[in-house]
């Protein structure tokens, strides 16, 4: 496989419009400066790109296919295609980013990586790359997520990582990011922080988008083949921190496609129990970036709430905040209940068990088909991961509902 050309760099200290920036404790700033320089050099270095591309194909199984969903399309009256990141090694798009950052870690001469994880997919991907490259690996994970994603905790340990449950705050992804950052402040000279989404201080939002753009670049080509040289009318992806969505959007930003990010609607936006940072957040500066965050009137960050650990985050990456402000992309929410229904629907009529995160994207398409998505439209949905990790949790919930 070959990589498409690099995308545009943010301006200045990682600005995406008024969002982004590098709001990090002084201890970390020199490492972020170094990382920015190393990434910029590496990303225009043919040898680095070749090695990255070869890992993506020979190790991660890229390119992943685009699958036409005939039965779902018939049901919804729109033509649905799935970009199958669930088929990538380790079961989600997270591997794309992690392999790139692992190569950079080696290039910087660091021997150890730390990571935060929500659903555990980024933790598993990081532990996998650490095993492959012989790096030490510590993963911070909210104690609540350790419970609900037990399978992934076990996988990380099997892969040789230490998993540290984080008890503070809401004990979910936000708190795992806090703890990973604190740990990085203490270890930055020897350790790379392998951040798992297109968020955080510059250069992470840019770098992670570039490592994920392979999703969108491939999908665009694949859609052209399926659609007789046309682009899809609508491109949809779920948004936690925003990495699978921004990687997908990167491939279609200059087409006429309607770009839609689907956030966690939790128990409904009116309930206040959700993770819809774009729809309901306000500008602020948290986790090293200026972006949109769920916060109270004083600026205290609110706890997000979602059935899916990977979307259970009260912020969003800064490029999404910019795309929302400019109107180039739109952001909507799907509730826990809708996601659960989509999880079952896709399993039953396509034989594909999605992770709960992209089940939100499917749910939005199912809701809007025939409404804001005109009948007969072509819709590409990024299926960012597979549902094995969620099976136990969903089985339990459905059991309770019965």
């Amino acid at each position, binding site marked *: 496989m070959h990589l498409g050309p690099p995308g545009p760099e943010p301006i200045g200290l990682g600005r995406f419009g008024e969002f982004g920036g590098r709001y990090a404790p002084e201890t970390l700033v020199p490492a972020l400066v170094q990382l920015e320089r190393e990434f910029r050099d590496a990303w225009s270095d043919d040898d680095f790109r070749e090695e990255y591309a070869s890992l993506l194909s020979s190790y991660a199984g890229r390119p992943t296919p685009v699958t036409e969903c005939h039965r779902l399309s018939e049901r919804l009256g729109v033509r649905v295609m799935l970009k199958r990141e669930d088929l990538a090694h380790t079961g989600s798009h997270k591997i794309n980013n992690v392999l790139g950052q692992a190569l950079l870690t080696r290039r910087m001469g660091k021997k150890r990586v730390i990571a935060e994880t929500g659903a555990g997919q980024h933790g598993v991907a990081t532990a996998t790359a650490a095993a492959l490259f012989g790096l030490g690996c510590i993963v911070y994970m909210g104690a609540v997520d350790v419970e609900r994603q037990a399978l992934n905790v076990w996988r990380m340990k099997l892969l040789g990582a230490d998993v540290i449950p984080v008890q503070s705050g809401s004990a979910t992804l936000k708190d795992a990011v806090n703890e990973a950052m604190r740990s990085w402040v203490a270890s930055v000279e020897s350790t790379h922080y392998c951040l798992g989404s297109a968020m955080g201080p510059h250069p992470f939002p840019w770098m992670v988008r570039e490592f994920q753009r392979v999703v969108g670049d491939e999908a665009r080509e694949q859609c052209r083949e399926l659609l007789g040289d046309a682009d899809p009318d609508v491109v949809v992806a779920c948004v936690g921190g925003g990495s699978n969505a921004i990687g997908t959007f990167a491939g279609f930003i200059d087409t006429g496609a309607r770009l839609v990010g689907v956030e966690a609607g939790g128990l409904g936006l009116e309930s206040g129990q959700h993770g819809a940072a774009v729809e309901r957040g306000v500008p602020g500066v948290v986790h090293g970036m200026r972006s949109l965050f769920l916060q109270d*009137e004083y600026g205290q960050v609110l706890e997000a709430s979602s059935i899916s650990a990977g979307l259970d985050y009260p912020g969003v990456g800064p490029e999404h905040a910019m795309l929302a402000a400019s109107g180039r992309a739109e952001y909507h929410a799907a509730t826990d209940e809708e996601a659960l229904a989509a999880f079952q629907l896709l399993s039953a009529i396509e034989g594909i068990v999605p992770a709960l995160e992209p089940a939100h994207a499917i749910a939005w398409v199912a809701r809007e088909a025939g409404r804001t998505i005109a009948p007969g439209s072509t819709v590409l949905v990024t299926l960012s991961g597979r549902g094995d990790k969620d099976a136990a949790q969903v089985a339990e919930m459905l059991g309770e509902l019965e």
Partner: protein
Amino acid sequence: MNLESHLRSRRDGGAKLLVPYVTGGLGREWHEVVRAVVDAGADAVEVGIPFSDPIMDGRTIQEASQRALDLGATPVGVMDAMATIDVPAPLVVMTYYNLVARLGHERCARHLRQCGVDGAIVPDLPYDELDGWGEAADAAGVETVLLAAPTTPDDRLAQICERSHGFVYGVSLMGVTGERDELASHAGEMGRRCKAATDKPVLLGVGISTPAQAAQAAATADGVIVGSALVRRLLDGGGPDEAAAFVRSLRVALDS
């Protein structure tokens, strides 16, 4: 009171500087704690405005922040309470940038000044991102203290020392706040590097936990900031008396 000139005159008079940290809103007696530590020999006091996600803080200050928030502490509430603390020492707030940004730079700076707050430390607002806040704080007369870390290269250290007002905050270790058994090996070097770069007062902070460590750290710097070790005593149920006794022990160690 001008923070920098106060600290300079104390230093130039031969004293080692002592700045304790107290979490604002932690218990009903927190203003009494501020008064008590000044009586016990503090040269200035750092008051934390609690934030939900303090990434430069370890367990003790995280817990104190959460407890203060649970007790209803708000940024403006802490500032207003500081206006009622009449002590012969400058007061400095330490908080995170999201709270400042939410209030708005000008409004936050003006309110701090109106409440008699002399300086501000915002650890997640590094030198290169200072612009909007830095200007507003300068205009309002709030001295913004910048942090220098063991990882800061020399050229950047010079810029930080130049731009910092009040004093220069040298981070004495690789890590976040919290008590440590020993003074970090970085402390001496950090003090020496900052002192070589500026004649502004240089204080070392983060991790300094005992009178002996304070004295050792002050050997290469102008003084120390002590946070978690004091806050832990408050979390454990201590009040103004316990705080004063601990600060007095730090003062004695620094003076001998």
